[in-house]
Structure formats: structure tokens, C-alpha cells
């Protein structure tokens, strides 16, 4: 009775959020050609969690990723990376945020062709004028297993190896959050599952936060949580997904959609 305050302070801390969106909207074009890509998306991405974002083409999943990753400016609502409200940052600060606090894995062409694998991995740190943390780099390299390929240029690497370099680069700077946009879309299933295993490992062993857009239910199955989007809205969520549960949910969302296409 006499210690309501104390009682409050002892309640368990809410989970820290690596990223968060509040009523996020994004509209392209004007008038007749207006397209509402996001219609009020509010999502939390807790730290240390592997999130997958799924949805049919045009559902807004890529737009969501771009807005979260400070590559695109929302029309309305808020994006927070950690405690930072992206709308309050200018272009320079956004660039610095992407460099220092975010990791990226794109579907393809992730690497700079004139730099070798190790230079590509250290790219964000070197852009910042910093030396990469050698011990951490070792850990990352052990995870993705590229030691014998470090001096090779991208053109001398297979697609799977290139994508492993991209994963290593995304992890090398210990970013608060890694965004992956169809990271396995261009790979065969074996190379793809390797990449997904690395991402899973980084979450399990190093508490990395990952947000991955994919349309592949078996890729989404590596995640802790799958968020489903349709028509620019969040239409569902699945915890501890398997390929089957994801597939079923997708089917229920849109009977016409053919998952995997």
C-alpha cells in the first residue's frame, strides 16, 4: 500500500526495442495515380529477435523495410531505430545511422567489384574511418567461413560466397539491427540455407536483431516471428514459424496468392 512506487519499479522492464514503427504510412504519386503502399503500420522489433516480413507482391513489405532502414522517407507516422526518431534526422545523420547502426543484405550485387572480400566486409567501418574490431571480425569470419577467400574479388566468388561476404559485412560493424531484403532470392536452396543458418546463428549466439523480407516460407521458418502484410497493413503475426504454418497462413491471407512466386 505504502509502496506503490516501489512496486512499479520492480515490475519487469519491457523488452528493449531495436526498431519500432508507429502508424507508418507511405503514399506514392498523387491524384489518380496515388498508391498507398503503407496504410498505418505499427510494429515493434524487439532486440535480439529474428523477424521475417511476408506478404504478397504489392503488400508494402519492401516499402516497410526501406522506411525502417532509413532509405526511404515515410509520408506519415514514426520510425524509431533504438530511441532515435528518423524523421528528426537530416540526410547526413541518416547516412551516419545507416553506416554505424544498421547492417544491410540485399538480394544481389551486394559487393563493390573493385574491392576484395575482406575490404568489402570492412566497408562501413572504413567509410567511418575506423578499424574493424579484429576479434569480432574473426568471430564473424568463423561464422561465415570465408578465410581462404578474403583476397578474392567478387568476380572470383560464387553467388553463395558473395552473399556470405555480404552477411559478414552486415554483421562486422555490430549493428543494432540488420535488414535483409530477399537475401536468398538469387541463390540455390543449399547456398540459401547456409546464409539463413548464419543469420540464425548470429541471433542465437550474439543476440543480433534481424528484419528480413522474404516470400519464401522455408526462409521465413528460420525466423522467431513472421509478420504478414497485405495492402499496406499488418494482417497477422506468427511466432516460432515452420514452413508449413507460414505457408498455410499465406494461403489463408490470400487464396489467390501463390506463395513462392
Amino acid at each position, binding site marked *: 500500500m505504502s509502496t506503490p512506487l516501489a512496486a512499479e519499479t520492480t515490475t519487469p522492464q519491457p523488452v528493449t526495442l531495436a526498431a519500432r514503427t508507429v502508424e507508418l504510412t507511405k503514399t506514392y504519386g498523387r491524384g489518380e495515380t496515388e498508391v498507398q503502399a503503407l496504410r498505418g503500420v505499427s510494429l515493434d522489433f524487439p532486440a535480439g529477435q529474428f523477424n521475417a516480413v511476408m506478404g504478397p507482391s504489392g503488400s508494402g513489405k519492401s516499402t516497410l523495410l*526501406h522506411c525502417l*532502414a532509413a*532509405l*526511404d522517407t515515410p509520408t506519415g507516422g514514426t520510425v524509431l531505430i533504438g530511441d532515435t526518431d528518423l524523421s528528426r534526422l537530416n*540526410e*547526413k545523420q541518416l*547516412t*551516419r545511422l*545507416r*553506416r*554505424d547502426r544498421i547492417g*544491410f543484405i*540485399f538480394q544481389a*550485387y*551486394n*559487393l*563493390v*567489384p*573493385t*574491392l576484395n572480400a575482406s*575490404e568489402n566486409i570492412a*566497408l*562501413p567501418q*572504413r*567509410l*567511418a*574511418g575506423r578499424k574493424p574490431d579484429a576479434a569480432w571480425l574473426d568471430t564473424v569470419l568463423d561464422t561465415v567461413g570465408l578465410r581462404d577467400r578474403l583476397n578474392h574479388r567478387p568476380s572470383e566468388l560464387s553467388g553463395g560466397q558473395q552473399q556470405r561476404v555480404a552477411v559478414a*559485412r552486415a554483421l562486422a560493424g555490430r549493428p543494432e539491427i540488420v535488414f535483409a531484403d530477399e537475401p536468398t532470392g538469387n541463390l540455390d536452396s543449399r547456398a540459401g540455407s547456409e546464409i539463413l543458418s548464419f543469420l540464425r546463428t548470429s541471433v542465437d549466439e550474439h543476440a543480433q536483431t534481424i528484419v528480413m523480407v522474404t516470400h519464401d516460407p522455408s526462409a521465413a521458418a528460420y525466423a522467431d516471428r513472421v509478420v504478414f502484410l497485405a495492402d499496406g497493413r499488418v494482417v497477422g503475426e506468427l511466432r516460432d514459424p515452420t514452413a508449413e504454418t507460414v505457408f498455410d497462413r499465406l494461403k489463408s491471407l490470400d487464396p489467390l496468392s501463390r506463395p513462392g512466386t
Partner: protein
Amino acid sequence: MWRATLSNLTAHKVRFLATAAAIVLGVAFVVGTLILGDTLNATFGNLFGQTGAGIDVQVTRVQAFATQFGPPAGAAEGVPDDVVARIAEVEGVAAVEPTYDGSAQLVDAEGAIIGGQGPPTIGTDVPTVEELGSTDLREGRYPETAGEIAIDAATAAERGLGLGDTVSVSIDGPVQEQTLVGTVGFGDLDDLAGATVTLFDDDTARELFGENGAGTVAVLAEEGQDRASVRDRIAEEVGSDFEVLTGEEAAEANAAEIGQALGFLTTALLVFAGVSLLVGSFLIFNIFTITVAQRTRELALLRAVGASRRQVLASVLIEALAVGIAGAALGIGLGIATALGLRALLGQFGFALPADDLVVNSRTLVIAMVVGPVVTLVAALIPALRSTRVPPISAMRANAAPVTPRAGALRLILGAVILAAGVAALAAGLFADAGLPVVGTGAVLVLLAVAALSPLVTRPIARVLGAPVAAARGLPGTLARENTVRNTRRTASTAAALMIGLGLVTFVLIFTASLQESISNTIDEVFLADYSVAPANFISFPEEATEALAGVEGVAVVSRTKSATVGIEGDARTTIAIEPETFAQVVSLDVPQGDLADVAGGGVALDEALAADLGVGIGDTVDIAFTDPDAEEPIEVVAIMLSQQSGAQVIVSLDRFAEAVGEAPDSSASLLLDEGVTVEQARPALEEALAPFPTARLSDIADVREQITDQTNQLLGLVFALLFLSIIIALFGITNTLALSVRERTRELGLLRAIGMSRSQARTMVRWESVIVSLLGATLGLAVGLFFGWIFTRALEDTGLDTFAVPVVQLVIAVVLAGVAGVLAAVIPARSAARIDILRALAVE
């Protein structure tokens, strides 16, 4: 195919404009030069037409060995009074007008000369027969007595001189004050091509200039007489010592003479225009190479749907043709402005040219419309042929990025062959006197060979040049360096365009430095005097000036010379007359045989090479014509000397000269001061003594050196100004290559920006790529320029250019400026690299 080409053109306006610009500037330079040449020709043609309008026949003395370097010894032989009288008696002659003319130097109130630094300073008499006069009164009246003058209206206006003003004039004595009583024009012109014209009354003019007769005799024919018949009758009367021409013939002859001199100027300017076109063609070659590479997929698609190789070739060449025609058309427009710019530029460097309405001949337009498209087509030929080798299957490949073949053995062999041919042509031209066109061809071949070979050295050179950039600029610097070696052929040919300009700059710097140092060394060896006096108008100064110096306290020795042109076996030879007793004290010449002082006995000293040509030695005699070609005098050779130090091929004593020629003004005087009198102590008194003689310029050895440096530096400035355009075109090429490369690397830039490259880092990356390319061009240019400088100085060693000097500081400045230029060239592409839309760039395939 036409439609595909044209739609391609409109789809790539920027590239089209860049290509056109390369050709526009080169064509504009050519057109500007031709317009300027035609305009000057027309100006002088008009001038002679105006001044000689009323003359039916003109009589002059045949000059035996007159050269462009000056009149024969003494005053020119003219038409004597008795001949003038005989002409007046010839049937059909209504009136004669003998003109007595010479050089009269106007002097301003401060004692400085007016004009006389190029265009002539003419002194002449007042016309007595109205129809035959070349001048027309503008204001006041003609001079009637000694002490009165009239001058040309242009000079009067320029100097703000009005009727009644006192004007100083120097002829062959001290400055005399004259009263201005009139101003004159020439037909409807006020300006005689920049010359100053001073009119004296007839008696004065005759006294001043008429010692040997009239310079020209203008003849007015009677009404109804045919000019040609009158001409023939006069010619018969006066004989072959005189040249008799109708008015038209005389005007044509005059215009032709001027035209020849102007032709030299036009040729020199066309060489620079050619350099601009050469640089422009590199740029075009580059643009087409890059665009063919970028269009690989599109070309493959055309081939896949059935276009033949020939059609693909035609589509590229038609694009080149269209660009060439458009560029040439624009070049013509810009050429008019260029002509005005060139005229102003030459004026800035002391070549005052008359300002008149520009003359655009149809020949100029035809040349422009041929040169523009042909240069473009030739430059685009190799990329066009390359485009035909794109296999149709490339259209199906996901990654249609062009494969760049490595610079191979073929390139090495071809480059080496061209290089060998170029060096051989240079050597033949320079050492075996095969002529300037051969030298030019050799130089162009060497430049092309270096351009062809440069991809082989681009990688190592760019790595070295880029190392400090990578170290200083971190990752953007590293990427800049790596980007330059991404496509070595592209980098090399972009740099090659700048190489040409920098190679020529280097060459000119080395050449002038070697020249200055050689002359300076010669001066040190030869110049023993404390002071020397030279003519400020480059002709002569009065004897009284030298005499005035002799009277100055502290002067121990004064040694004068007079100069002239004499005839030996019909060739004009530069000659000086010296005081044998004192000359050796003030000038130290190399005299391999005999003794220069022996000319005191009436003999002659000959240049070693001339003596060898003539096949004479000490003790032999040579026949020398001083004034009259028919009156050769045999003179004994008493010494053999080296002309390169004195500039004169023939040396005689003043006494011998006076005997043969009579009176003449001095061409130089050298002074030795008394022991203990310093150069600086003597200066005020000497300057005061020379004050009445503005055409005599006093110099000590430091002044002489400075004058030579000033002259060569002025030439240097002009050459740089003319090379400027080609350097601008080369920078344009760098801008264009970078812009195309930035576009090609859009996806990569998007990636770099997404993972944290800042806009300023993107700019830095492009900027330093540009700087490295520029410095690569500068490095190649330095190498080529050093070679050119070396081989040219070696070739000219015999003429006294015996020092090979490398002006390190100036060359370093040139290289630094090339780097700065690289920064400027990168401004636009760097901005577009920094401003790419990341999301759109990432979406690019």
C-alpha cells in the same frame, strides 16, 4: 536503321551535346583562324585599293636583294630626279607624283615612342596631284613649311592630339618638335593597318628621305589612255632597273606580299586549331567507345531481330555523322566569336592587327562542314567497328556488361610500330631537313603511339599516383584509385586527350627554358660591355645618340655598329659594320681563323658556315653588293667567325661600310666605363644623354637578359593561350567519361550510399578519380614533352641552342594545375554521384 539512330540520338541529348561540343570547339578554332586570315587579307586589300585608287601606273626601283628582314645597306635606292622627269615626258602621261618616304618615329610628351613595335612608322610627303595622293585630308591642312606635320587621324584620335599641338618626331637625328596642322585618312579608312603616318611638306620630306631619289613614282594617265599601254611605254623609257606596274598590279603585288606574311600567321594558328581537333577526336573516340559498350545489349537485340553487321555499323556511323554535322554548324557560329577572340589575343601579345568587319568566305564554311564530320567519323570508326562484333546472343545474357579485352600484344606491336614511325619522321624532319610537315606528322604519330600504348602503363602509373590519394582519403580515395584501373583503356584514352595539351606545354616550357639559358650563356660569353644601346623600334637610332654617349663623363670606350643587308651571289646576307679597334673590347666573338681586327684594312669577316657554302677561306675574295646589285665589290676575307653569337653573317669595318654605302644611322652601340665607375653610378648621366633620342634604348647586361626573358615569356604566354582551348576540350573529356562512368556505376553507388557512404565521400571518390586521371595525362604529357624538347634542342644545337634546360618548377606547377583542373572537371559528375536516389539506384539492374 535511320529511325533507330535518330531515336537513340534524341534519347541521349547530354551525350550528344558532349560529343558535339568536342567538335564544335575544334571547328570554331579552325573557322576563327580562317575568318581572321581572310579578314586581314581583305583589310590590306582594301587598304591598297583605297590608297592606290587613283594611280594608273606606278614606278619603283628594282630592289636586288631586299628581304623581309630589312632594306639593303643604307637608304633604299629610289627613282632619281632625271628618271622622274623622263617619265613625265612619256606619251599619255598627264601627271607624275614622286613620293619621298622613310621612317619617322612619333614621340609622346613623356619621350616614349608612339607605335613602332610592329606596324611601320611611315614618314612621307604631301600629295601634290590630287588624283594620285594616297591620303585625304580629314582636318586642318597639309604642312607647308618645315616644322609642320600632319598625321593619320587614327593616331591623332588615339593619342588625343589636336590641331596646333606640338608633337615630337625622331627621324635620323635628335627629336624635333613639330606643329600638328592636319590629320589625314586613306580613302574611307582612318587607320593604315596600325601604322603611324607622318606627313611633311615636300621640301622637308625630300631632304629627309629623298637622298637616293623617290621611293615610288605614281603616274596619272591622260583621259582615254589605256593603262597597260602607258605602263609599257614607261617601262621602255626607264629600262629594266625600274619596275613599272599598273595601279591594279601594284595593289595586287602589295596585297600578295602582305598575304604571304599573314599566311604564316594563319598557318601557325591552324596548327593550334589542329591540336584542338586532335584532342577533340580523342574525346569523340572515347564517348563512342563507352556508349557502344553501354549499348551492347541494345545492339545485340538489333542483331538478334535481324539487323546485319553493316546496318549496326551504319547506325553508329550515322550517329557520328549527325553529331559531326551539328558540331560543325555550331562551330561556324562560334568561329566568328573565336576570330574576334584571336584578334584580341594576338593584340594582347603585341601583334596589333587592324580591327575591321569580319569576312566569312564560303570556302571557310565548306572547310568547316567537311572537317567537322570527317574528324568525327574517323574518331568514331574504331568504336563503330567494335559495335559490329557484338554477338546477338549478348541480348539474352543476364549480365550484358561488356567484356573489356586486356591490352594485348597486338596493341603493343601496333603502338611500337607507330612510335618508331613517328620518331623516324621527327628525326628525318629535324636532322635531315625533311621539312616542317614531316616534323608535324612525326609529332602526331608519337602522340598517337603514346595514346595507343598508354593502357599498358595505366595500371602501374595510376597505382603509384593513387597511392597517396588512397592513404590520405581513406576508403573513398582507395575506391577512386581502383576505379581508374577498372577500365584501363577508357582511363588511358581519357588521359591521352590531356596528355597532348600537357605534352605541348611541357615541350614549349623546355624549349623556351633551353632557349633562354642558351642565349643567357651566349650573352655572358659575348657581352663584355657595361652598357649597350639598341634601337627601340628594332631598326636604328641616330648617330648623334652614340656621339652624345661618348661625351658622358665616366665613359671610357664607345663602340658603334651599323647593320644592313648585302648581296653575295644574289642572296641577302645580314651584315654589321664595326669599329675594329674597339669592337673586341665590348663583344667577344669566336673567331676560329684570322683576326677580326684585320677588317680595319678593308677586308671582310665571314661566318664559318657561309664561308664553307661559298667555298672561300682566309685570303680569298668574295664579291659583295652593298647597294646596287650590279656593282659588286671584291673584298678579301680576313677572318672566319661564328655568326650565332653576333647574328651577322658578314662583318666589315665602319670605314669600308661608309665608303660603299655612305651615311647610315647606328644599329647598336656598346660602352665601357672608366675603372671605378659602377654601372649604377653611370646610369643617370647616360639616360640623360639619351633623353633626346627616344629610339635609342640603354641596357646593361641584366636589362638585356630581362628583355630576352620578357620576349620569350611573351611568346610562351601566347602559346599557352592558344593551347588553352585544347586543354579545355580534354577536361571536357574527363568530365564526360566520369559522367558516363557514374551512370554505369549507379547500382554500385546506390549500394555504397545505402551502407553508409556520405554524399561528400561520394563526391570525394569521383573527384579523386578525376585527379588521378588528370595526373596520369600530365605524367604521359611530361614524358612526351621531355622527349620533344630533347629532340628539338638536339636538332637546333648547331644554331646556338646548345643547352637542354628542364624548368622543374614550372613543370611542377603545370602538373599541379592539371590536378586542379581534374578537380574542376569532376564538379558535375561528382555532384550527380552524390545526388543519386539510393532506392532507384538499387533497383537498377
